[in-house]
């Protein structure tokens, strides 16, 4: 009779995977932002808080290898004018599939964008919209790049 350990090993064997494929990409979660209030002559900061499930990592904005897809945040519309983006620094981690440590983020992280109010901006509410693009992996596999829509309510006073 086979020991439970043997049965477990068989169940985990790739050749006997119960599914053909179907291992799903990890979902990066962006915490909804509260309304950002800014004066007509002022500046604003939007800090996006995001997280990846345990066991997954995503490349930082400055990956250590040329072939890796960097994390990028693109603001595509809204009443504010972007000045700078500060990406998470992440950390250097070693994985079985890379000779060198990779620059990655794991768990919770933040991306901070500084804006200014352009001259002639109208007062009132508006939506600052953009896309956070990331590409994640775990210890053994990588997942296609994903785009997460970002939408932050802005109120120019």
């Amino acid at each position: 009779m086979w020991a439970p350990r043997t049965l477990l090993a068989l169940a985990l064997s790739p050749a006997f995977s119960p599914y053909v494929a179907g291992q799903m990409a990890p979902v990066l979660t962006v915490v909804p932002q509260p309304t950002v209030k800014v004066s007509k002559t002022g500046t604003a900061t939007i800090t996006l808080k995001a997280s990846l499930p345990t066991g997954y990592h995503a490349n930082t904005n400055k990956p250590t290898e040329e072939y890796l897809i960097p994390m990028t945040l693109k603001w595509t519309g809204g009443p504010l004018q972007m000045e700078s983006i500060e990406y998470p620094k992440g950390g250097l981690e070693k994985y079985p599939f890379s000779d060198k440590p990779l620059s990655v983020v794991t768990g919770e992280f933040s991306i901070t964008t500084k804006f200014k109010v352009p001259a002639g901006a109208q007062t009132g509410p508006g939506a600052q919209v953009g896309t956070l693009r990331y590409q994640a992996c775990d210890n053994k596999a990588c997942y296609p790049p994903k785009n997460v829509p970002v939408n932050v309510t802005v109120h120019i006073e």
Partner: protein
Amino acid sequence: MNSVNNPPTKLVRTAGRMALALIVSVGLGTVACAPQEPPRKAVKDDKDRKPAPEFELKDASGKVVKLADYKGKVVLLDFWATWCGPCAIEIPWFVEFQRKYKDQGFEVLGISMDDDGWKAVTPFVTAKKINYRVVQGNDATGDLYGGVEALPTTFVIDREGRIASVHIGLSSRKDFEDAIEQLLQPAGVGSPNAAGPGAKPGL
């Protein structure tokens, strides 16, 4: 020290030897009677294999490539992308498999899942000296194979066009090679599951 002149010492030695023999025999018995883990199978049993879904995709020259083109061959079908680190580990193995087993009726077929298409793939193919055909895949191709999300995902397909093993994520070179060698064997050689009664080795 003379044991004849020291009976207690002889007794102790004899007892020690008996104890040692007992320990050894119990140990061997334990090993012999322990449930043995069966050797890990490289491929699914013949009855459990399902047909590999057919597809038509284009290679870098624009030529349409169909899975049916590979009928009668053992095929290693690799879903990969240029941005995938684990894929880059496996690809040199596949280059070597292509060289080593091609004459025995084996082919590697790479399906790139890069959104950027040949602009990204062609330089990679050149840099890695890929010696097998690569086609451009898409989500629909992945869906045909159960929704390929994790890369690499590699299917080893038998001569009858059935999926004999699936490898999700970075696998071991030995796992691939064991599967290929088993599937390349003529029917009835090696494993009773290597091919069914309808197998047509050599085609």
